[in-house]
């Protein structure tokens, strides 16, 4: 077995007392003590995550835009302002999800793409194989580190650590980044994240990462592990690739129809013919949130008994913000929000309510039911 890879912040994690786990072939911190405390610090103040295991790719060339319009289910031509980002699925020919990713637009000839760690090799191979016929090159940026600073105080604390970055990043919209040049090196500071809170994701030269991590620590940003990252994204109703979706499901079965852009009927992207028209794959399930109404904890792959048949949880955990268990699930398409269902947990069936798959945003419950 191959030894797990380490990010440039590996030593910093050990120094902070992290419990390390193998995540997609990377030795990553799952927590630094209490996962729940780390969760709360992101909802209430500011926490940071080492996300250097994710893979940054630079796409450049005269056909970069044309290539991405073919490669991705979302349409990059809706990106007009430099630095603007777009969330998209990359589909195979059957509309199965190869990966979900973020693409940053700098110019019609230049983009930054960030893909998941566990799928990076597969993604790169897929993307390279489809470059034929396009004037564009794909560069894998293993020379960078990524730190996500998240929480209501994240931006302020980031600026405390890096005051000179304020002027350039203070006006960023949500889902917008800016390239910031410091000492001849380029950082990408982006107002993005995977927690449902405000904050920045910062991409910077790998060599600088330990000093930047230290500066953020000194500014009062608390290190947070993958455990808290998972409960935060689950509360925010954000999908985790490999758990809530993979190549066996289409974006329509993963609650991601909003990311499939069909407006330009002349655009032919990979997977489109399997989603539309006469030969579209059938879709009799939908993606939903579940709120457990009794004591217990839902996990992935539990059976969901509904009036219209059986569904399955794809992710589940305990929500530290709501103080009850929440889950994402694929259920029969006709089951409406507000319905009561039963979750099979070990030898019991516990009651749960079907809700919109967005439980907590900006520190507050989104549940209106």
């Amino acid at each position, binding site marked *: 077995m191959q030894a797990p890879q380490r990010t440039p912040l590996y030593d910093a994690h050990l120094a902070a007392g992290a419990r390390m786990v193998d995540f997609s072939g990377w030795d990553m911190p799952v927590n630094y*003590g*209490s*996962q*729940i405390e780390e969760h709360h610090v992101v909802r209430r103040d500011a926490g940071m995550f080492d996300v250097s295991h994710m893979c940054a790719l630079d796409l450049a060339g005269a056909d970069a835009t044309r290539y991405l319009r073919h490669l991705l289910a979302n349409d990059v031509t809706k990106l007009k302002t430099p630095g603007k980002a777009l969330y998209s699925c990359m589909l195979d020919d059957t509309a199965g999800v190869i990966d979900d990713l973020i693409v940053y637009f700098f110019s019609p000839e230049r983009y930054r793409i960030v893909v998941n760690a566990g799928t990076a090799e597969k993604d790169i191979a897929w993307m390279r194989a489809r470059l034929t016929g396009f004037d564009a090159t794909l560069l894998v940026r293993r020379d960078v580190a990524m730190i996500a600073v998240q929480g209501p105080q994240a931006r302020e604390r980031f600026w405390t650590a890096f005051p000179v970055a304020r002027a350039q990043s203070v006006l960023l919209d949500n889902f917008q980044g800016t390239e910031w040049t410091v000492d001849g090196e380029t950082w990408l500071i982006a107002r993005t994240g995977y927690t449902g809170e405000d904050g920045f994701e910062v991409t910077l030269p790998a060599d600088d990462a330990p000093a930047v991590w230290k500066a953020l620590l000194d500014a009062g940003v608390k290190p947070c592990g993958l*455990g808290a990252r998972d*409960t935060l994204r689950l509360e925010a109703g954000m999908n985790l690739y490999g758990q809530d979706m993979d190549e066996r499901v289409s974006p329509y079965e993963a609650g991601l129809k909003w990311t499939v852009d069909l407006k330009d009927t002349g655009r032919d992207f990979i997977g489109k013919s399997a989603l539309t028209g006469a030969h579209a794959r059938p879709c009799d399930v939908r993606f939903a949130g579940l709120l457990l109404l009794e*004591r*217990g904890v839902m*996990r992935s792959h539990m059976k969901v008994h509904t009036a219209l048949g059986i569904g399955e949880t794809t992710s589940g955990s305990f929500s530290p913000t709501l103080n009850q268990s929440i889950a994402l699930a694929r259920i029969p398409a006709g089951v409406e929000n507000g319905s009561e269902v039963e979750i099979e947990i*070990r030898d019991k069936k516990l009651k749960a309510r079907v809700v919109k798959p967005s439980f907590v945003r900006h520190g507050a419950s989104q549940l209106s039911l």
Partner: protein
Amino acid sequence: MSSSAKPADNLKYAASHEWARLDADGSITIGITDHAQEALGDVVFLELPEIGRVVKAGESVAVIESVKAASDIYAPVSGEVIARNDAAVDAPESVNADAYATWLFKIKPVDASELNKLLDAAAYHATL
């Protein structure tokens, strides 16, 4: 996280990470070890056996759930459940705070000598 991380000498241990203590009244008090709470992470839910339930040594009788995972708790001895710690059910995080002070349930044993089949502190520590 815990103030008493080392296995205590007055307790017996199961390889499945329960501790057991023979009390003066002949009952046996059971909890999980500090190593177990550390591995589980933040505990958020406990499902303890009903009082009066008759259990066999090695039988799964309770469930402990952390944010991360669910784990079974096994009866270290055979007997009848005579008490359960409902305060711990209401505050599951107390298991993380002090796993040896937070008992979970008590068994009136059929045969208290079953305790001798369990590990002492040194032997348990050696399994970790």
